């Protein structure tokens, strides 16, 4: 009994989210869709409480080793909950104007966040799978949230089928590992002797997880789903689940397969190189800004994986730092995309429609320019520093080839970010966008742009320090 109580205490953030999800679901059922706005803010409050519980919570193993709360999981939970809260708020104007204003939206976000928190706290293959599935199921529904629109339904279906396949592969890998090592517990697995069977299991597990972080060669769903899903949902997909899946991947590699670093490093190195190059090259021909951002996220995952390939504390620090900054940049970019609406308020997504934005909407253009230069990794913007961190780790680990490919890919990638800036600043203005319809979103854009601007460099110290503490918890 005492043990159960202690476990519940350790898992307090998840508990808050569970109760919160059920509570908001009930509230929504009884009050109907008109409660969307207050419900959203209630969900933000739930995220805040869960985040507070995570930060102040007790570290330790719970539920007989299924669940762990440590510095690593806390760091990621703060990122996930923050990104989920922003995703909930930024959707409000969109939901109100496109006949998708149903109360399930924030509730699904809470459920998804619960799955993600479970993912980063998983200390066993089974809890890993449960967390991943909970997150994914909520995500499939969200992708098809604009159910009257064919593109959205298609995105949801596509995501579901491919996601289910990836889950199957993952589960198969888990069963192989269980068969050969006789355990699903990360701590025990970490000491298991290396064998061919476990190797096979490792490959399948990594394939399943790479799908979730949308790394090449498991990236095909990303551009289609981002394009088809409603823009706020795409913003959510690009942010929180990426951080959660990356955290999960890191923990599986470092904790469960810590004895096989040499083996998974080869896979991770290949995937990193492929993602960076394909993410950079694939984006060049895109004319839709959401697809462009999808390829950008593929490339960014590749850069973050450089840190994992290094496999050192510095490397994992780089991954965490990277994800933190990436969340801000990508949410900021999607917030700007949400502002792209024609005079009648309908969303537009083509790159060409950005032409001359620097004259019609100075502030918006400047903010998007900051995000683009930041994503391209040009100093002194904040986006340069996570790249700096992972390259430092790669050089320290003597992965010179990986580092050189990385910087070359970042130059190729710079080209398509520049295209966005070119459209906004160099081209003659086209039809103007509708005026901003949400002060909250405008404020969020402002904050994100400020963080990514050179002023954000002042945050390097605390952020890198926190990431380092979190990474140290894994070793």
């Amino acid at each position, binding site marked *: 009994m005492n043990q159960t109580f202690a476990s519940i205490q350790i898992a307090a953030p998840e508990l808050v989210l569970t109760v919160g999800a059920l509570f908001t679901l009930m509230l929504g059922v009884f009050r109907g869709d008109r409660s969307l706005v207050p419900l959203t803010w209630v969900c933000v409050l739930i995220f805040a409480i869960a985040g507070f519980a995570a930060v102040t919570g007790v570290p330790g193993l719970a539920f007989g080793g299924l669940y762990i709360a440590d510095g690593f999981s806390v760091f990621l939970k703060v990122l996930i909950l923050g990104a989920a809260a922003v995703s909930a708020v930024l959707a409000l104007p969109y939901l109100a104007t496109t006949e998708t204003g149903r109360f399930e939206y924030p509730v699904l976000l809470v459920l998804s966040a619960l799955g993600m928190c479970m993912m980063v706290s998983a200390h066993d293959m089974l809890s890993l799978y449960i967390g991943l599935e909970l997150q994914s199921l909520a995500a499939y529904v969200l992708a098809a949230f604009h159910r009257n629109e064919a593109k959205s339904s298609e995105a949801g279906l596509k995501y579901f089928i491919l996601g289910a396949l990836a889950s199957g592969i993952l589960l198969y890998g888990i069963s192989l590992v269980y068969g050969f090592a006789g355990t699903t517990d990360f701590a025990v697995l970490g000491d298991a002797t290396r064998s061919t069977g476990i190797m096979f299991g490792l490959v399948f597990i990594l394939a399943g997880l790479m799908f979730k972080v949308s790394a090449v060669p498991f990236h095909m769903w990303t551009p289609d789903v981002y394009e088809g899903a409603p823009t706020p949902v795409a913003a959510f997909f690009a942010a929180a689940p990426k951080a959660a899946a990356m955290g999960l991947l890191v923990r599986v590699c470092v904790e469960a397969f810590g004895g096989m670093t040499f083996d998974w490093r080869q896979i991770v190195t290949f995937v990193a190189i492929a993602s960076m190059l394909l993410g950079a090259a694939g984006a060049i021909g895109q004319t839709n800004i959401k697809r462009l951002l999808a390829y950008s996220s593929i490339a960014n995952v590749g850069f973050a994986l450089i840190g994992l390939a290094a496999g050192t504390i510095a490397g994992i620090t780089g991954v965490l730092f990277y994800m933190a900054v990436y969340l801000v940049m990508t949410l900021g970019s999607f917030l700007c995309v949400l502002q792209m609406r024609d005079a009648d308020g309908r969303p537009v997504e083509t790159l060409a429609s950005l032409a001359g934005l620097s004259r019609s909407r100075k502030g918006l253009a400047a903010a998007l320019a900051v995000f683009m230069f930041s994503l391209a990794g040009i100093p002194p913007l904040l986006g340069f520093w996570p790249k700096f961190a992972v390259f430092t780790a790669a050089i320290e680990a003597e992965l010179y080839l990986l*580092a050189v490919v990385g910087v070359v890919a970042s130059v190729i990638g710079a*080209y398509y970010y520049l295209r966005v800036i070119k459209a906004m600043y*160099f081209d003659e203005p086209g039809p103007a966008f509708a005026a901003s319809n949400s002060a909250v979103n405008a404020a969020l854009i402002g904050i994100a742009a400020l963080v990514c601007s050179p002023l954000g460099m002042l945050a390097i110290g605390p952020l890198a320090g926190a990431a380092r503490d979190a990474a140290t918890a894994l070793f």
Partner: protein
Amino acid sequence: MGFPVLSVLILLPLAGAAWILFSGSAENARWTALIVTLVELAIGIALWLGFDNSTAAFQYVENLPLFAPYFSWHLGIDGIALMLIVLSVFLMPLCILASWTSIQKRVPEYMAAFLLMETLMLGVFASLDLFLFYVFFEGGLIPMYLIIGIWGGARRIYASYKFFLYTLLGSVLMLLAMLYMVGVAGTTDIRALLTYDFDPAAQTWLWLAFFASFAVKMPMWPVHTWLPDAHVEAPTAGSVILAGVLLKLGGYGFVRFSLPMFPEGSAQFAPLIFTLSVVAVIYTSLVALVQTDMKKLIAYSSVAHMAFVTAGLFVFNTQGVEGGIVMMLSHGVISGALFLCVGVVYDRLHTREIARYGGLADNMPRYALFFLLFTMASVGLPATAGFVAEFLVLTGSYRTSAWLGAGMTMGIILGAAYMLWLYRRVIYGKLVHADAAAMPDLSMREAGILLAAAVPVLWMGIYPESFMKPLHAPVASILARVERAALLLPAVVPARAGPAR
């Protein structure tokens, strides 16, 4: 730590840019930019007057660990950095004045971009932290990209992409080398790295990585092709800053990093530099001869002059290195002034085709006079800045290798040919084009700008010691640093450093 004068120098233009963007109006933007750049000039002169020329140590040092653990706000200058800072703050007000009436589109953004540019350039020269240097070095791409892309000519978009991606590719390799250096030496402090002895085998790669960056910035043949495009498409003031200061970043990098940090690497690759320099001098001079676009011609002449800088820096003797630095200063003023001269006629006729002019001596005598002075300075006429620089570099190169000296001298002859021919076609002859004949002579503002540029050109030519005094001590310390590697040099050079073609 006393008054943080370098921080003020760097941050003042940034504050000016922010003010301009917030306040809006074009007139306000022009005046703010002018006042800020003039204050910067005053601070620069004050730095120069208060500078202790007797030591190679870095002065006005500030160190704030603002961005720990990655890097710190660490500033300080030696004589070389000082002179380049003086050059930058001198050219800036001229650029603002030159854009006074010719830029009518989005004036506040333009002035803000220039002030931002000034911040970043000064930051490069004043950084004492490796990564702070990189941040400023790389950050300069953003405003320059915008300046070319928004206010440039017809093919501005192509030119802006080419400029950005070319220089970015060069610098990211340098970044990796920097990460390696910091990993090995355990510090980001440039002063500590200057005395750290890297393994000679590693130096080869480090030198090449830095070379990739600086050679593109310089630019050296064969990676110079971005420069003519960027110059032709950039607005006049953009060209001035590009030629006057941005090209100096490469040379400064060679002096600050490549030479003293990798002496063995530098000696190993000196023959490569000499070959590329000689090829550049002769090849780009020949290319300049056939240009029909005034700006493109001057752009190619810049590449040729930069080859003098690289050759001078790597001959490992006092004349060569000091000559290379003086070449940077003199070229900064002279080519800047030449671009201003082109800008004067471009503002009137909106073409840079040489054939559209001719006979301007008749209707624009004052313009002809100034243009003549700067043409002669570019050719290297004694009593102008160009002569001092070229003479020193030639003396230095001849001492190391007669072949090198001979090759570089060819450049001077060809330089005289293309510059004088340009002058003849534009200024002399008959006024055949009616619209060219109708152009008025220099306005007071234009005459003032060109007069201000003429003063240092003559001063540096007549009494160069004023400009060279701060250089002696740091150059001597760099040479002391590379002395051990210089022994490797003579054995290699005469055999390989011929004017290979």
